Structure formats: C-alpha cells, structure tokens
C-alpha cells in the first residue's frame, strides 16, 4: 500500500514535471510498471486458487469477475496511462464500458422474458408426445 501511495505521489508530480521533461505525455516509472505486473500475477494465482473453493452457485463467478475487473482496472489505469492521461480518454473508455453493461443487462433482462412462453411450448410438446 505504501508503495502505491509513493507511486501516486510520483504520478501527481509527473503531471506537472513529466510534461516538461519528456515532451508529449507522462513517463511511467519502471518500479510502478513492475509493481503492477506483480499485483496482476498475484491476482491471477488468486483467481485460479479460489476456483477450488465452493462459493455457491453464482459465488465463484462473481468472485472471478470481481478479480478480473480489478485486474482490468489496473491495466487500464497504469499500463494504459489513463491515470495521467487526458480525462477525455477516460470518459471515452468508460462510455464503451457503459454501453457493454447496457448491452449485456438488457439482453439478459429480455432473455428472461420468454421463459414462460418456452416453458408453455415445452409443456405443450410433452403433452402432444404423450398422446
């Protein structure tokens, strides 16, 4: 955590100095890059390990998705420079995420809507078969 705090401080500094020193964009320190990779690898081990524990019907999926999202957030924030980058790029990226969520959630909601029709159809078919 303290390492993170340090890196953040550096990042904030970089916002002012980085532009002047290296021209066009922030330069990410190597220690931060390597630290992020270490965290990503630990999270990978964690997500594999957690599979062997039974966390209920949807529990494992939820935990796996939470870990994947933390990993994705680390990659986007530090490897993809969004932490120091123009906020407009962050808005662009979050917009795409928003639309993915809309896409998935609306499809899932809609998918449930036909369950009763499907069940009725199956029941009718079963009845016809039995005759």
């Amino acid at each position, binding site marked *: 955590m303290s390492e993170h705090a340090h890196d953040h401080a550096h990042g904030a500094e970089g916002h002012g100095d980085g532009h002047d020193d290296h021209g066009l964009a922030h330069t990410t320190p190597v220690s931060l890059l390597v630290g992020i990779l270490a965290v990503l690898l630990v999270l990978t081990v964690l997500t594999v390990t957690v*599979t062997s524990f039974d966390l209920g019907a949807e529990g494992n999926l939820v935990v796996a998705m939470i870990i994947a999202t933390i990993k994705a957030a680390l990659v986007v924030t530090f*490897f993809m420079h969004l932490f120091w*980058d123009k906020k*407009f790029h962050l808005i662009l990226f979050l917009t*795409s995420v928003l639309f993915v969520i809309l896409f998935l959630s609306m499809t899932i909601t809609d*998918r449930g809507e036909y369950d009763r029709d499907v069940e009725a159809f199956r029941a009718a078919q079963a009845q016809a078969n039995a005759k």
Partner: protein
Amino acid sequence: MSDATSEAAESPKPKSAPPKAEHGHDDGHGNGHDHGHGHDDHDPIHAANPHLAHHFDTPQQQFDAGKLGIWLFLLTEVLFFAGLFCAYTVYRSYRPEVFVYAHYFLNTKLGALNTCVLLLSSLTAAWSVRNAQLRQHGLLKLNIIITIACACTFMVVKYFEYAHKFHDGLLPGPHFAPTEQVWELESFKHKHPEAAEYAEHLIKSAEKKKAASEKPAAVPPAAATGVVAGSGTAAPPAGGAEAQAEATATVAKEGAHAEEIHGRPTEEQLEPLIAAGVIGPKAETRDVPSKPRNAHVFFSIYFFMTGLHGLHVLIGIGVWIWLLLKANKNVFGPNYFGPIDYAALYWHLVDLIWIYLFPLLYLIH
C-alpha cells in the same frame, strides 16, 4: 545529436504555445498547401522534427490526434468483443451445465500460463513506451523483442490447445464428436473421483441391463438387481420414453434401489454428474450417463472468442515487428513515440480481453 535532442525536447512544451500560434499555425497551413516542399527552410518546428507530418503544427498536436484516434478504435474493439461476451452470457444463463461439462476439457494450467505470458508482454509493452520517450534505443528494442516472443509463446500454446481439441473431436457445431466422456478425463477424476467411479458403474450396469433385456426371460432378475440406471424399465411400458427418462432421473437421485457395489449413491457421486449434465434432466440420453444437450455450442463460443482474440494477437505481432524495424533505425524519442504508445494501448486491450476470457472459459466452478 544532443543539439537536436534539446531542441526537439523543448519545442513541444506547453510553454511553446505562443510560437505555435504565431508561425506554427501559419506555416503549417502553408506547408499543407505546397505539400511540405522546403518546409525545412522556414519552419523550425518541422525542421527539428523529421517525423512531424506536414499537416500537424506541433509534435504535441500530432501525438494527441493519434492518441484520440487509437482510443476511438479501442472503443469499437470493446464493443466488437461485447457481442461475443453477450452470446456467452446468454448461453451460460440458459445452460450452465454445458459450461460445467465443457470446462473439464480445457487445460487450466495452459490457460494460466497464457495469462501470465500476456501479462508479462503487457509490462514490456508499457515499458517500451517509456524507453521510446527516453530514447533508450537498446532497451526499446529488447522490450519489443520480449513482447513479440511472449505473443509467439501465447500463439504456440494456443496451437497446442487447438490441436488437442481437434484431435479429441471437440469441434463446434455439427462436427462436435468428443472421443472421451467427461468422467474419463483426468480433470474430472481428480476433482470428483467418486462421481467418475459412479458414472463408470452406471455405464457397466446399463450394459448388463441391456444384455439381460435381450434375453426375454432375464427381465425379472434384472429388475431385482435394481440397477439404478436401468430401473426405468421397471416403470410401466406404456409410459413411453419421457416417463422412463423422468423415472431414471428421480431414481438416480433417490437411489431407491439397493446397489450391488455402491449402495445408495451419495451427494459426491451424483452432484458433479448432474451439474455437468451427464445424468439427470439436462443430459442427452437419460438411461445412461452421456453429455448435456447442445454441448457443442460451448465450443462454438470458445473457438469464436479465443479465435478472434488470437487473431488480434497475430495482428499485434505484425505491428510489433514493424515497430521493431522502425526502432532499429533509432527514430523514436521524446517527440516521436506515438506509434509505440498506440501499439502498446492496443496490446493492453488484447490483454484486457484475455483477463476476462480466462476465468470465463477455463475457471468455471
């Protein structure tokens, strides 16, 4: 070189905005019209930056334009993959047993290895951007080479995974014809040894039952042994296939009849088989353990998602090779590292997709 460096490093500063407004703008337009002829003579910014295209006023403007462009492209990529993730979500919510069944066929170790390889290449890609910014030509080339090596490793591992699946008949659509039953797999036996044994036992019992029923006189003894899988025949023959199947499912669950070897089936024996759609109402055949209905759809989704991702990795390899050739000429520096930065952003997105694909395809509980 040091002169050029300092000049190049200074010109794009925000502080140099006034010159940009003064002559950068005017000259830029002029150069645009006469196709850059002789712009080296009157435009100090373009003269100092051989990689600044004539239609941009400053390296900063060129870099920002490229960066906005690559981000817009990445948005379309996210939405592009979202279609496949949507197919996955819908099908998994419909048929969870197919995913439980199919994940036993995937090698988690190879998937985890590929995850680590991609994460490592993400580090070297991000590092190469820093190298380009700081004119660390040697490190830049090294990091690009490691990135390419990781990408190739990923593809080689993927090749072995695909080859194994083709060999085992794990193909999408009508070509799906697995040569192995799920309970015969090491991954299944390791996780659920009792269930694997029980499935084998059900198969043997069904064979015995079948052999017995071929001899008409042998029906009563077969019923008396109370073989679980075959006990459907004890139901009135008028019930038809549906009734028999229902009976099998309930009987398998209740384990009402005495078993020669196993006795009443335990939770450990039944639950993994039902969850994977091997027995029970989701199974393809109800009298013997088999596979869930429509299991081939998982492999359609699997091959589409990993295939499209693999195509992106291949394209990434091509881009990195091109950049390695460029880096070999030592062209990158503080005012010109856009291509490396954009390629790295693309590469991170490819990694990002895999971060989700790995648990969704390989780590199903």
